[in-house]
Every structure is written in C-alpha cells, then in structure tokens.
C-alpha cells in the first residue's frame, strides 16, 4: 500500500532488508519506517527514515544497522536522514508487515484507514469507551479484552483472549 520509493535499486533493497531491533522478523520496510533511498555518485546513499514514536530508542539502532548493512554491501558513503513529516502512523505498516506481526503472535493494528497519514477533521475525540478489540493472534477469537493500553514498548498494548485465555500484545493504532 505504501511505496516510498517506486524504483527498487540495489541500495534500496539492502536498506529495506534492515530488521527492526524489537521484532527482527519484520523489516523497516514492512513497518513503513523507511521513507526513501537515494543514490548519487557524488553524495553516496541517502537513506531517509521516520520515527514511529518521538521517544523510540530503536531509531538510532536502526540508523546504525542501515549504515552497516550498506557498508557491507559495498556502499561507502551512507547518510541516514530523519524525516518527521508526514508523521508515521500504523497505516504505514504494509500488508506483509501485518501478516508477519500476526505470525509472531502480535495482533496487527486496526485495518488502515482510507489513506496513508490520514487527516482528521476537528479535534481528536476523547474515547472514554474502549477501542474495538483485536482478534486473538493465536486462536483468531474476536473475544479479547484490553489489559493495558501501554505495554513493554511504546507501540504496543496488552490484551488477553477470553476464548483461549492467552495474553498477547497488539500494535496500537497511531
């Protein structure tokens, strides 16, 4: 759904394969963290990434990994740049990323809204009610309950399946 760089270049493929430090089966391309990869003989490779959360400590890890992978692949001059706007949201996670999340037992976020980086009309409403519960990634039951809106990392919430009784994490809609 998101194609930050339509052209797949060798440098793009190397950068895109960088694993997420937290969930290594997902790449930064799957998570929509990779915005674009440009190459010119003069400037070398410029990889543009975007943070998920303002305080996400993985950003530096990712930047270091991207640089190391490209160096190993023979690209000498590598710059990793940050792009803040448009802000990342869970809608940037690709279908492949959603599939991989479910495969490791993490409920993907609610299905992407109409488009990437959607604009709201008006202020964000206060949701004193609970968001719709995700399906259990183990038994696919829709009967799950939210244990906590925050979990071990900034991007996840904590749930429990009332059918199979297993606790699981979900990626929060952002």
């Amino acid at each position, binding site marked *: 759904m998101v194609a930050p760089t339509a052209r797949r270049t060798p440098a793009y493929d190397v950068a895109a394969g960088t694993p997420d430090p937290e969930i290594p089966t997902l790449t930064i391309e799957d998570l929509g963290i990779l915005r674009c990869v440009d190459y010119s003989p003069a400037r070398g490779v410029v990889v543009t990434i975007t943070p998920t959360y*303002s305080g996400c400590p993985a950003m*530096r890890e990712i930047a270091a990994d991207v640089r190391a992978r490209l160096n190993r692949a023979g690209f000498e001059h590598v710059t990793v*740049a940050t792009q803040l706007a448009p*802000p990342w949201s869970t809608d940037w996670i690709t279908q492949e990323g959603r599939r991989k999340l479910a495969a490791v037992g993490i409920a993907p976020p609610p299905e992407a809204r109409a488009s990437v980086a959607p604009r709201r009309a008006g202020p964000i409403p*206060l949701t004193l009610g609970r968001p719709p519960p995700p399906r259990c990634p183990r038994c696919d039951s829709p009967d799950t309950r939210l244990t906590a809106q*925050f979990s071990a990392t900034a991007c996840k919430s904590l749930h429990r399946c009332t059918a199979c009784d297993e606790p699981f994490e979900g990626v929060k809609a952002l």
Partner: protein
Amino acid sequence: MSTADVNPPDAGPFAVNPDDDNPYDLLGEDHDAGHRWAFGTGFTDPLEGVDTSVPDGLDPGALVRCCLALGDDALIYSHRLQQWVARLPELEEETAVANIALDLLGQARMLLSRAGGIVGQTEDQLAFFREEKEFRNVRLAEHADRDFAELAVRLLMFSTWRLALFELLSSGSTPASTGDPVLAAIAAKGVNELAYHRDYAASWVVRLGDGTALSHARTQAALDALWPFLGELFRPDPDALATVAGSTGPGSTAPGSTGDRAAFDAVLDTVLAAGGLDRPTAAPLAAVGGRTGRDGVHTEAMGYILAELQSVARAYPDATW
C-alpha cells in the same frame, strides 16, 4: 589468542574457548564508530537530516523561546513521571507511566534540539547545564504528585492542554500555522502520543472519581489542589510565543496564548461529569512580580528536580554515553 591466554591454569572444565561468541565481546565491538555499549545509547541528534533552517521572516529568538517552553514542559514532566516508576500499584501502570514519560522525553529531545540548533547548543547542554531561572516550563510540570489521584488528574490537565495546543501547532501541517515547519512536524508527531496519554489519564480520573468514597475524595482533593496551576497554561507569552505564531485575531495558534481554553474545558467537563467530580473554582496560582514558570520563576520543587536531573552530567561534563 590461545585458550591459555584467557583462562587461569586451574580453569579445568570451565575454560573458555576464545573463539566462541562471547556476549561481553559483543559489547565492545565497534558497531558504529565505537560509540555504543548498550541498546539505545550513544544518542545522535534526533533532528539529523531534517532541514533546520529558520524560515525567512521568523524571529529566531522567539522560536527558541517557544521551543524551550514546550521542550522544558516535556522534559520536566517526563522526569516527574520517571520518579513514579517502581512505585506504582500494578505492572500495567508501570509500563503506562514509563511509556508516557518516554514519549515526553522524545518530544523534549526534538524541541530542545530545535532550539539548540539555532543558539548553537546541543540538547544535552540545554537539559543539563542551564540554571533553574533559565527553564521555561510551566509550574504544573514540576509539581510532585502526592498520590496516584494527583498523578491522574495532573496528567489529564497537562495532556489535554498539550494535545489541544499540538493540534493547533500542527494543523494542516502547513508552515503557515506556526511559521516553523520543524515545530509543526514535531507537534504533528506528538499529537497521537498525547491522545493516548489523555485517554489513560481520563479513564483513571473517571474510575477513581466514580470508585469508592475514598478514591472519590482523593481525586476531588487532587483536582482542588492542582486547579490553581491551570491559569498559567493559558497565560499569553507576548514576547515570544505569540510572535512565533505570527498571526493575530481569530484562529491564532500562539502557544501559551492559545484561545483553546474552550476545547480544554469541553474535555475536562466530560471527564469530570463521567467521574461525578466537581469542577474546582480555586483561583489561579499567583505570579511572582508578574512572572511565572515561563519566565523562569519556579516553585521550590524545581531545584530538587534539577539537582537530580543534572548532577551526573555536571559532575562528569565530558562524559559520553
């Protein structure tokens, strides 16, 4: 290196083969210019690669004051939340409060970097080597929560105000709304995070207010105690923040002079009604000679925060981590 080099003579079956992967060696490996020893350390500029030139027609000094105000709010508030970690009643609240503190710290890093880039200082220099009177945070941010009810109420007030303000700052993501595209982008990034903070605080205020007689009484007491800090959040800062907005009249998005008190009140009234709590009528905390937290005049609590926050950096000013 041979096995004998790394093992004492009597190592016997516990002898280590130096060719095996050793986690301690991994710590010392030169991953990235030798600057990293553990996950998340060796920080770089959070705005690396972002175009940080100040747009024409914008007063850099005013922009700095604005970013310091919003950055200091986040830094000091984050520190107060960090002090709660390991003291909360349940693991779920631990992770929630720690995550909220982390989000605010991330916002603080970007905002202080934005300010620092203009005045030629790093985020660390601004966080660790300024004196109390140079910090521009509102006094609500430095308040020490006396119980969990105060944690919830204070976070509700702060995140509701900050969310409304960040929505204005980022509205349309057009530079026109603030004059500064970087500040607009930082605000846009923070909006969704703050929405989660507000929901967390609101759900606890409702639960406590609508809970037992004791939880209700303590939550109402927290509201009454914290309400005087509210006025400062909406107090205009004409020499800096309004200037940054570069606009006057309806729709002005000047932080601090935001006209969004109505949006704030609407959210608070909804939460208070759901929790069966009364809106306090306490008068705003007095300014000192017309000056408040935004002018560097803080409560007694601020000195203790800075002592804890800055002591290591000041003792080892050349340390890297």
